[in-house]
């Protein structure tokens, strides 16, 4: 059986990759992909702690994962709708160009 720290380090690397994706890519969809990776890293942590925890019977970890997945799906749907609205408004999905709230501001 693989020890718990391996799982945690795996999840940490996954989280770091997601965070890096969020921070370095210009495309808003790539930012969302990064966020998905970070959420999955968190889910991996939940499962790992559930498996190695004491109250495995209570299935709390599973429940957390299920709820997190559902909320993540909702978040993705809203995020992508925002991206499409942004695209319709500005003809671009580059996040560094979308730095003003008012539509008539010219992108830098």
């Amino acid at each position, binding site marked *: 059986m693989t020890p718990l720290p391996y799982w945690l380090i795996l999840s940490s690397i996954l989280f770091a990759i997601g*965070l890096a994706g969020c*921070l370095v890519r210009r495309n808003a969809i790539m*930012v969302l992909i990064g966020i998905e990776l970070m959420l999955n890293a968190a889910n991996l942590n939940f499962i790992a702690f559930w498996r190695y925890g004491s109250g495995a019977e209570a299935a709390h970890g599973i429940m957390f994962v299920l709820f997190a997945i559902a909320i993540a799906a909702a978040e993705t749907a809203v995020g992508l709708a925002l991206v499409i609205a942004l695209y319709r408004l500005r003809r671009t999905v580059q*996040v*560094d160009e979308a730095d*003003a709230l008012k539509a008539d501001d010219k992108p830098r």
Partner: protein
Amino acid sequence: MRTVIEMVWIVPVLPLLAAGVSALLPRQRRRTAAALAIGAMAAGFLLSCVAFAATLQPAAPGAPFRLVRNFEWLQFGSASLALGWVLDPLSAGMLVMVTLVGALIFIYSLGYMAHDPNFTRFFCFLAFFASAMLGLVIANSLLLLFICWELVGLASYLLIGFWFHKPSAAAAARKAFIVTRIGDLGLLLGMVWLYRETGSLLFYDQGQGCLEQAALSKLVVSTTLGGLALSSAIGLLLFCGAAGKSGQLPLHVWLPDAMEGPTPVSALIHAATMVAAGVFLVARVYPLMQAVPSGAAQVSTALQVVTWIGACTAIFAALIAVAQNDIKRILAYSTVSQLGYMMMGLGVGGVAVGMFHLMTHAFFKALLFLGAGSVIHGCHEQQDIRHMGGLRRLMPVTFAAYAVGMMALAGVPLLFSGFWSKDAILHAAHLWPLSKGPFVLGAAGALLTAFYMTRQMCLVFFGPNRAAHASAAGGHVSAQPHESPAVMTVPLLILAVFAVGLGFLGSPAWPWFQGWLEGSTTHFQAGHLSEALPTMLLSALIVAAGMAAGWWLYGRAPRQSPREADALQRLQPGLYSILAGRFFVDEFYAATVVRLNAGAALLSDFLDRWVWGGLVRLTAWLTGQFSEIARMADEFLVNGGFDLGCGRLRRGGRFFSGLQDGQIQHYLSVIGLALAALVLWLVWGGAL
């Protein structure tokens, strides 16, 4: 009776509504606009007849029927301006005349203007004019009369310039407006003076009006410059307006030019109704004009002036008409001349004499103008009588109607209305105590009238048709002249009936018209005829002489080509050129008044540009220097400290706004670093 006076205001309002509605109509709704205008006039005619019938009974023997309805219009402090309308024989007669002639001319216009693209606008203007004219007629306040007076002037301007794309029409419209405005200045001054002296502009107001005894007796006794009675002075100022509107001598120049408008307009406005408004005004304020101090039996100064100006205008315009070649221009000068007769009639014989000629003239002159319009229409817009001729066979209905109108105007004895009304004027002039001059001038004018109308008839309807020469000269083939459609000839025939029949209402044997205006009952008395017989015989002789002379010169040997010299020109070339040049009044005005005006304008321009302009520029320069100094003070003293503070604020703002750059990834980075720092602090900071 009370209901009649309460309803009189509807008569002018109906055409106003028609005008307002047709102004909003799209251009294609030609039938609607015409139907509205004609319907309004027809309804107005029926109402006018009701009002007319009401005035047939005198209120008391010797006092004409009169009902007034006044109302407050403006209130300033304790003073107030009242307006109102009046129903008496004068206004009722005018109402009937204007609505009847107006309705007939409207119907005639259906045919005459049938091909005009702005047909709808034309009827809108016509209805507007009719409304203003009817309002003028029933006004019981000099102010209301003045308002309508200006409105008919505006309508006249619009209609003379109806074909505004023609430069001559636009110029004629402007000229008419400006020349009548000179007279209107006098009218305005007279009105203000009258208000100052009497405190009321209402004509009749239960003893308080400005034409009633209380006010008049006050006005008569006080005198102004040169011993002129105040009433006469005000009357003369009012007469200035009347002279402008009715084309009396110094101000007649606009009326012949006004013939640039469509012919129905010439007939309605510049022959039958609006130009008669001046005569009507004098008749309306007649108590003021004729007022003399009690005891003195002479004629008031105002009436003397009216008489002399009228007589001079009558002969002057008749002379000019002799040598004109434009069919409408001849009629226009004839109108000026006849208006002179009316003024003279008012001066020498009173309201009844002048108004009788106004009524008969309205019908036969409208008839003549419409006939001329029919001729012009039939001859394809040809207006020069030298290019006509021989139309008697080609346009029989028009010829018959025109002949009736011509004989009424010339004053052919017994059968035609013009004879009776003109004879009444000449008779009164003959009896005038002061001078026989007006009588002589009037008689000479009658001779000339017969002469020039005969000339016109000969040239237009007799002899060979000379249109072929014109087309040969113009280089295009013009069609044969043709009779006009029934919509144009039927109004002609109706007017012809009135031109004949109206005269019998005022013959010396049975002066019904006079009695009606003055409120007395009259009966047929053949004996009165014998009193007037010498004058009648004389005027019949004059007419015969004039017509004979006209026939001798023009009918005996009809001219064969348009280029031939005029018969009178061969006899008296010098006289003819002066007459054809219309005594060079226009040229005289151009050389004096217009040049003076231009000189004054140049002088004003110079003063404006260099003297006042220099002052303004100096002021501007000084102001500029002062503001420069103020700017320096501001910039270096006041703004220095302020700018420093502002600069610091802006630098601070720029720093903080740099943090808020809108880049979400920067925000996220900060969050990530803060998370890392937090975890480090939690794990090794001793919190756990």
